[in-house]
């Protein structure tokens, strides 16, 4: 056992930290730290900055133009970026990249990987449907083979960032025989194909980057099928297992806690910073202590990965840990605002708005941010479903 970060790890951490400090545009950073809505261009800009440094695809091996970093390095990288206020890397790179490397044809790899890495294609993930959320295998969007293409009909929902995306990687039904999981295929679909319509969904925090995607007799070249027909479920599963440690969201947790301390220092209670109020301080302390435990759980998982042991479903502890920390921090942040949490200034959620606010701009985003973070216990598998899987897979119950 050696409970210290190695000299190389430390050097790497400092390198990333300095890079982000020097290169992340201040306007983007401020939007992230103040919980304002980001534009597509913010994500693309940051991605291109990383790309110029050769860091555009942190989870990819070198031969595909990635960084070739170890699991530990990836986590350090993610943490330093997120903590400093960088936008999240768009789903595309970390998700579809590894899938295409493992299951894609040489043609698919040659076409999509460079464009994905360079952000010439923005992807979204089309799994969920109105009737298929937790029970994903019951999905009904159909793809029927006709000659050299598939005809797709159906509907996807909750497709994050689909308003901006160029392509969707989707799970579609290609057979109704056998177990539901056995009739699903993994298909790459150009969102500009005729027959596709997107309806934006207004979310609880006022954001609009989600859509419902409708497919009406959409022609998709058969060459866009990934892996074999009816083997899409295992492709999707591979993706879920890949990068489980990312679910620790350690950078996000740290950023939220730091923001909480900052805001609790500027907000006053009886003339003193709120953070000095014992009642409030205790709650912040608790979040910080939980975060320490969370961080060390992550380190244990990383050490398993470094020793080539599969941490398996135990990593779900990380997902639940992050959920609790992020939700509590966002709640306390809203409480900092006190009565000022009430006014809803939609414009405060967007950059560059100079209107006349009752209070400092960053106060008026705190309530919306609290509502928004309810999502962390829903997306990517709800907490209830996660716990169900854990009790089966880990405890054998």
């Amino acid at each position, binding site marked *: 056992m050696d409970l210290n970060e190695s000299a190389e790890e430390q050097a790497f951490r400092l390198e990333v930290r300095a890079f982000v400090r020097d290169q992340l545009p201040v306007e983007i950073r401020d939007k992230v730290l103040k919980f304002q809505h980001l534009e597509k261009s913010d994500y693309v800009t940051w991605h291109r900055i990383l790309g110029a440094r050769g860091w555009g695809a942190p989870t990819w091996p070198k031969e595909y133009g990635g960084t070739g970093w170890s699991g530990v390095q990836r986590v350090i990288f993610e943490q330093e970026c997120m903590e400093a206020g960088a936008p999240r890397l768009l789903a595309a790179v970390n998700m579809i990249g590894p899938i295409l490397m493992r299951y894609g044809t040489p043609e698919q790899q040659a076409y999509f990987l460079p464009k994905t890495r360079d952000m010439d294609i923005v992807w979204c993930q089309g799994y969920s449907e109105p009737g298929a959320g937790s029970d994903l295998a019951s999905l009904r969007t159909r793809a029927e083979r006709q000659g050299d293409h598939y005809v797709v009909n159906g509907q996807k929902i909750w497709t994050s960032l689909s308003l901006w995306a160029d392509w969707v990687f989707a799970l579609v039904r290609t057979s109704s025989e056998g177990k539901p999981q056995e009739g699903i295929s993994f298909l790459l679909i150009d969102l500009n194909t005729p027959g596709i319509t997107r309806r934006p969904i207004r979310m*609880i925090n*006022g954001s609009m980057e989600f859509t419902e995607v409708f497919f009406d007799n959409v022609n998709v070249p058969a060459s866009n099928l990934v892996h074999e027909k009816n083997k899409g479920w295992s492709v999707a599963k591979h993706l879920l297992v890949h990068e489980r440690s990312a679910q620790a969201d350690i950078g996000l947790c740290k950023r939220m806690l730091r923001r909480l301390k900052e805001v609790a220092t500027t907000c006053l209670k009886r003339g003193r910073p709120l953070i000095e109020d014992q*009642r409030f301080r205790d709650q912040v302390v608790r979040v910080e202590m939980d975060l320490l435990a969370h961080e060390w759980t992550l380190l244990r998982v990383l050490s398993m990965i470094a020793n080539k042991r599969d941490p398996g479903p135990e990593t779900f502890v990380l997902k639940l840990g992050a959920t609790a920390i992020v939700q509590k921090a966002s709640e306390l942040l809203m409480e900092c605002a006190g*009565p000022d949490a*009430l006014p*809803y200034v939609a414009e405060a959620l967007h950059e560059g708005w100079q209107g006349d606010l009752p209070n400092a701009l960053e106060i008026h985003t705190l309530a919306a941010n609290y509502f928004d973070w309810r999502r962390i216990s829903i997306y990517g598998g709800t907490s209830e479903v996660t716990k169900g899987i854990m009790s089966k897979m880990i405890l054998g119950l």
Partner: protein
Amino acid sequence: MDFNLSEEQLMLADTVQRFVEQEYEFEERKKLARTDRGYSELHWQTLSDIGLTGLLVPESFGGMGAGPQEALIVMEALGRGLVLEPLLSTAFVAVPLIARHGNKAQQQLLLPDIAQGRLRLAIASLEPEARFDLWQVATEARPQEGGRYLLQGRKTVVIQGDSAQQLIVSARTSGNSSDKDGITLFLVDAKAMGVTVKGFPNIDGHHSAEIFLNNVAVDGSAVLGEVGRGYEPLEWATDRGIAALCAEAVGTMAKLFDLTVEYLRTRKQFGQPIGRFQVLQHRATDMLVAVEQARSIALLAAARVDNPDPGSRRKAVSAAKSVVGRNGRFIGEQSIQLHGGMGMTDELAAGHYFKRLNCIDMTWGDSSHHQELYGDVM
């Protein structure tokens, strides 16, 4: 003790419930909330016609002469529909304040108009540096010749402040900015010279206002109650408002709970209603307990809010506000969670109920503030 409603109370509950059913269909409400005013003048008049603006106005001034129990019945029913009309400040805070502490002339001038639905008031009590402390008053009232005063200061997040024609302003006539002594209440015309009202929609569709008072001249007749002794009446009247707000929250929670249980019955995953999953059954029963505890403690607040023993009143009202705040948040969060992705949208009612519950918690002292006030008198 009898928790059953009397015949008149039943009728009252019924009338309000009917209003909510007829006028507050969810999509209609959503449209109304997005208008500039944020509520309907027509609804306001209807509410007045069925006696709600004058519910607490003494009969001698054209009101119904009712008390905190009727306020509870009405507000619970309004809470179920997320009603937007700005009744709270006028009917449940300003009226008791004027009826108990106003002089005859003020009562004559204001109460009949309120009962008729012609006048709305807001309580301009909180200030930017004060968080939830009603006693932190930096707004100054400087005495002038002829018994007049000049008001100078800023009031923040004044609930329903943008639709009020008259404001009840707490201002300091003596002492320093966190003394309970030396606070005086003034009736101020919202259109008076030097008054600036900047209205904002809140996250729940209700409205509040920032109010700037810049050398606002008022006559001595604008003083409500006694000079320098405005704190006690303000705290009591705000407590009346808090008790009413707790009742509203109970209605909001109960309705949100119903919506959630309905969703558990109808939403199917894995070939069965999600309500079959034991974890969700247990969650729903936790929510049920939270609703019922909130209901009980809101009744306690209504029972004690006029108690002459200030400690007893403080405990009941603060306990109610604190429990309601906490339970409201629990029910809101769980309701979103049990609705899954649907819960995260603006399109479903659940999110709107959740937001209202959070706003109620942040109005006139959040859960933790009232825990502190309770602790001070325990």
